[in-house]
């Protein structure tokens, strides 16, 4: 059977169509699902998409940002109110991919992709799924199980304090390369010491993960070589990096502390 596209005015209607048709897939920017069809995935025959306005909205107000799931990386990269996020948005693909790839799609991107989701995890973002708030950490943990096939309307997060959001991606190929390791962090400092830190990794497991041991070890420390030493010592705790064409699990584990150190201690 050939492929077909069905477009619905709301995400809810799209969700009903998907629920009713096991051979349907949600079509966002197309970078994952159209590729899959092109490569001979015959597991689905219908693209379902929604034209709901909220999917492409960016709202920044009262210290909080809400980004529609259909907003592209390119739009985020040029959104003045989200300037701190531009490096994370620009870490995705090349220019053409960034004009297509969406926030929602990135949440589902398998390793070594999904760099933007790492940023969202560090921001402790909340997802709107069927009108219910779901923490991005909970969503990612249940991505293939409880939240499989979930339709994300938007993501929202509290804007981090000026200068507190850090992002780094190590890749083999520049400027566009799949990730060896991606690290996003929100590090807040008070009076010369770290008051709180949220650290998220990409490519250190089969999906973006937080690094609670590092976060604990940073709390109350100075952002100096000495201050972060304990955190670096536990950098790989709880990680299970994949081996793939880009890098081995061993290599990822070895260089993670190096990149974490460089992120936390800028030259």
């Amino acid at each position, binding site marked *: *059977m*050939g492929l077909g596209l069905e477009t619905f005015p709301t995400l809810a209607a799209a969700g009903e169509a998907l629920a009713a048709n096991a051979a349907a897939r949600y079509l966002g920017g197309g970078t994952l699902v159209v590729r899959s069809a092109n490569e001979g995935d*015959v597991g689905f025959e219908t693209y379902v998409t929604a034209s709901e306005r909220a999917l492409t909205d960016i709202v920044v107000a009262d210290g909080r940002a809400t980004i529609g799931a259909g907003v592209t990386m390119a739009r985020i990269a040029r959104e003045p109110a989200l300037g701190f996020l531009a490096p994370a948005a620009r870490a995705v693909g090349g220019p053409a991919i960034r004009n297509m790839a969406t926030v929602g799609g990135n949440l589902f991107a398998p390793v070594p992709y999904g760099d933007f989701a790492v940023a969202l995890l560090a921001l402790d973002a909340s997802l709107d799924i069927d009108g219910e708030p779901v923490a991005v950490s909970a969503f990612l943990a249940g991505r293939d199980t409880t939240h499989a096939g979930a339709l994300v309307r938007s993501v929202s997060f509290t804007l981090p304090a000026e200068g507190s959001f850090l992002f780094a991606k190590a890749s083999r190929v520049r400027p566009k390369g799949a990730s060896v390791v991606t690290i996003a962090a929100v590090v807040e400092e008070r009076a010369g010491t770290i008051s709180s830190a949220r650290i998220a990794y990409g490519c250190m497991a089969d999906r973006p993960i937080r690094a609670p041991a590092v976060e604990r070890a940073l709390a109350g420390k100075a952002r100096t070589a000495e201050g972060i030493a304990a955190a670096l010592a536990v950098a790989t705790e709880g990680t299970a990096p994949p081996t793939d064409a880009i890098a081995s699990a061993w290599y990822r584990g070895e260089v993670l502390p190096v990149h974490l150190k460089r992120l936390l201690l800028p030259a």
Partner: protein
Amino acid sequence: MELRKEYFADERKDDLKEIGQPRLRADALGHVTGTTTFFADRNLPGLLHLKMVRSPHHHARIRSIDLSEAGRHPGVVRILTADDVPHNVYTILTLIQVGPEDETVLATDKVRWKGEAIVAILADSERAAHEAAQKVKVDYEVLPAVLSIDEALAPGAPVVNEYHGQNFYRYDSGECRKVRFGDVEAGFAGADHILEQTYGSGPIEHAPTETTGCIVMPEGSGRFTCYTNTQAMFFTLDNTSIILQMDGAKLHMVGGTVGGGFGGKVDVTVEPIAILGAKLTGRPVSFIYSREEEMQISSPRAAEKLVIKDGVMKDGRIVARYVKAYIDAGAYSRHSPYGAQKSAAHFPGPYTVENVWVDSYCVYTNRTPSSAMRGFGVTIGDFALEVQMDKLARLVGMDPLEFRFVNAYRDGDMKAHRQPTEGAALIECMQEASRAAQWPVAEKYLQMSSARREG
């Protein structure tokens, strides 16, 4: 780029009118306007799409193939199996009498690498072909696989390819192509230092931006026009003629504008089966590798293993060089027996060494067949040789560039494969490199010439 005309000026007249001129390329206008016609830039009405069903196993016996469900799938026009191929066991270099025929166009009783072609589905759309491919049922008995050169040559290793009978290509010289020059053992005996090192490489893909493919049009005349991106028109025509047992006069290959080759388009893997499909259906057929097929199914540059043992004197002269080279051909020969002997001829590199021993092996493993690539039989050898040269220089305490001057070949020097050196220019390249890279060498090396030996 800089042309340094002062070198060899007396060997060259620079009075030509068209040669040496930086004329614009006549084909570039087509490229920049997007009007250059590549083989796939044709829309033929009624075109069928060919998709190959491939082995998921490195090595397996095929117990049975069930096409009943796939054959009934809507849009499927025909499914080709080994029984449809008139001369199903072939080898490309049979044209230059390099046998035996050792590869099946479509697998019969066995598959010998993960990705080997088994049946070809011809359908109205790519989608229908993909869907039908899922419905082809192949019953395999998985066999032990040999995945490395060392495993292949170990005693008692499973035989990869019964057409050879052992896991290496048998030359008229025996298990390897040999070069014997001087007395290598005497050379080692008289050497001040001996250094033996092992080098290796993984397979490398040509990765042209245009994947391998062809489109075939059955003509009313009974001939077949095949638009192809092959690197060798008559290699393709003649092999197709053999495989299909079809008079070459019925075949018309059209090509010559290729989206990158690098050696990756000298195998004859798409044209025979696509032409067969066109013959059996009477419709035009397109067989174009997907990017994943180009990356993992098309022949890569072979993985290699090289052992180099050198005897060197304190003054830097290499007096003996012993090389064992192993080329991982994968499951079938393709061009690898040629590459292994080209490799044998390349040693000891652009240096004059009086005692040389080379054994170059073409080894079969249950891997994607490798074949020609830019630098065929030489690239990995040069990596090994030139790293070895660096190590030798440090071993005798010499500057690595000066060490190469000491050993560089000159006109008239006898090479290990017993051809006198002509037209050498290694020394001049190194002299210019010394200048350009500001890598100083002693004056005596700057006075050297490839054309004659001093003194």
